[in-house]
């Protein structure tokens, strides 16, 4: 008996990019891309650069007076600002966590089940994202006043959770939709009760989505100004403090904190991407 040699498939060559009459790939697309990147990155770069600027009066100026790292050494020198930053971190941390806890089951329900009110839920999620912050802030304020709730950290967190849930739900749902349904069936088939199947199979598989959703929620929460300003009462968060400081001049520490928040966000996002690659 002889072995039948199957002919090895010849891989068709990909047509080279940018060979069209306009040579889009060679010039136009790179130039366009770089312009967009510059447009989005310049403000962030300015913030980082000016966080190293000398500022003799303790107020930010946009004249370059020389390089210094002193603002990094004295980043927590202004107690009110530090306090506001701590408030912001508490709010962003807890609202991203709470919205992950509420948003994940919502995402599973939307992705995997058909039930009465499913379309309504979906609509609410999108209107929630589309609704102007001014409207949300004003209506939440009137709700809190009606309920006679004292404005402070708690009301800020409640308000932030209400808009973060939608982001978590959308990100997590995208992850679940991409999963083979048979994987959950296989867990049941192998004797896992619904709870065990969730814990041992679904949750680990959608964790990157949950983390990505939480990061997004964290980012949305930490720099929210409009809604927070309605429901904060006497409590100051980082954006509220910065807004208040604008009238008298911004201390350079604000730029330092902004830079640090940005860097932490970037690092977390990269870690999530890296973890996801390693699992796959």
């Amino acid at each position, binding site marked *: 008996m002889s072995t039948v040699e*199957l002919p090895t498939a010849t891989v068709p060559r990909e047509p080279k990019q940018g060979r069209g009459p306009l040579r889009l790939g060679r010039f136009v697309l790179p130039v366009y891309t770089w312009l967009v990147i510059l447009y989005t990155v310049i403000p962030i770069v300015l913030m980082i650069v000016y966080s190293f600027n000398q500022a003799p009066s303790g107020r930010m100026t946009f004249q370059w007076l020389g390089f210094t790292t002193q603002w990094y050494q004295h980043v927590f020198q202004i107690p009110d600002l530090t306090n506001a930053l701590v408030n912001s971190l508490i709010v962003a941390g807890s609202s991203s966590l709470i919205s992950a806890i509420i948003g994940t089951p919502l995402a599973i329900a939307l992705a995997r089940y058909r039930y009465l009110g499913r379309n309504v839920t979906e609509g609410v999620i999108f209107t929630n994202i589309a609704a102007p912050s001014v409207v949300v802030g004003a209506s939440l304020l009137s709700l809190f006043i009606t309920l006679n709730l004292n404005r402070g950290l708690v009301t800020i967190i409640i308000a932030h959770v209400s808009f973060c849930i939608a982001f978590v739900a959308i990100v997590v749902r995208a992850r679940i939709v991409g999963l083979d349904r048979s994987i959950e069936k*296989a867990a049941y088939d*192998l004797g896992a009760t619904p709870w065990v199947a969730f814990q041992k199979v679904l949750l680990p598989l959608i964790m990157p989505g949950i983390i990505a959703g939480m990061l997004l929620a964290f980012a949305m929460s930490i720099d929210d100004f409009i809604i927070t300003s309605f429901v904060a009462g006497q409590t100051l968060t980082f954006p509220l403090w910065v807004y208040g400081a604008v009238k008298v001049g911004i201390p350079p520490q604000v730029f330092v904190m902004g830079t640090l928040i940005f860097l932490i966000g970037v690092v977390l996002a990269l870690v999530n991407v890296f973890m996801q690659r390693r699992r796959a």
Partner: protein
Amino acid sequence: MLPAVREGVPNEAEVAAADVHLRNVVKTYGGVVAVDDLTLEIPRGEFFSLLGPSGCGKTTTLGMIGGFETPTSGTIMLGDQDVSRVPPYKRDVNTVFQSYALFPHLDIFGNIAFGLKRKGMPKEQIASRVTEVLRLVDLPGYEKRKISELSGGQQQRIALARALVNEPRVLLLDEPLGALDLKLRKQMQAELKRIQQDVGITFLYVTHDQEEAMAMSDRLAVMNAGKIEQYGTPRDVYERPATRFVASFLGASNLIAGKVVSSGGAEFAEVVLAGGQTVRVPAERVTPGQVEISVGIRPEKLLLEPVSEPAAPGYNAITGQVILGTYLGVSHQYIVKGPADTELVVYVQNLGATAPTLGETVRLSWLPEHTFVV
């Protein structure tokens, strides 16, 4: 539609020994009937296939046995336990999914041990069972590998191992070879058959590939439009298809319309074909009282002879005109215009004989016992 003659219906002893009983199972989806009053016995320890075209209800049937679908009515028994409404995690069946559905976040050991861990088996025992089953599927020492490192064929074996390691009462396989290329598929068919014989677990195999079902099954059921058309051994079903659908779905068939003219008492009934030629068919294959029938012959059962030579005694013989000849290497395939302009397919083994020319009138003959009636 013709009444489905259920050839090879299992006798009472077989029913008693059966592992899976489906009784009058119906499944409808919003008014659309997917499975229509299905009754089926799957004998213990057999390799059983449910064969049918896509949308015939075979996967739905498998889903109901696995516990992923609930029958609209009827009962499903595993042994003597009614499991019609038992959730999948409480059923002693395991499934090999079409997409394999391996857990990508667990390594191979984690995948295979998943079911055993749910049963609370001690760790050392789990480890030895996993080692054992990996040897069975010919991937020894793969415990620590990741799913993404495996080829399609290897993933297939792991999916099989993950289900088999639980020693289920019945193993359900949902077109598990569908994603593999032809060469690998043939290899896995033989492998699956070997594994089934080694472990002796009842396999219920769902496929639309008739060759695959024939090659592996001890018995099979042909499904169409939510109903079982025929049940029996591959040989029974191929040699004596009970319905027009089975005759054409399982291999190729030549069907010629005719009228029964005599059947009383004799071994063979006489049938006058449309066009006037008379053939004989085994009398027991004609339902008493039935007159309008179709006579069927498989293409490889037909002999193609020049009309100048004398006909062999005892053979049915009809004449026709060759309208197309195709050289296939191993055989020639001819299309012959037979009685009442019916186009008949004939396979002639390539023995180097002189090929008939196009337009030539030839005689087609075959043994009466090779005739079936639908």
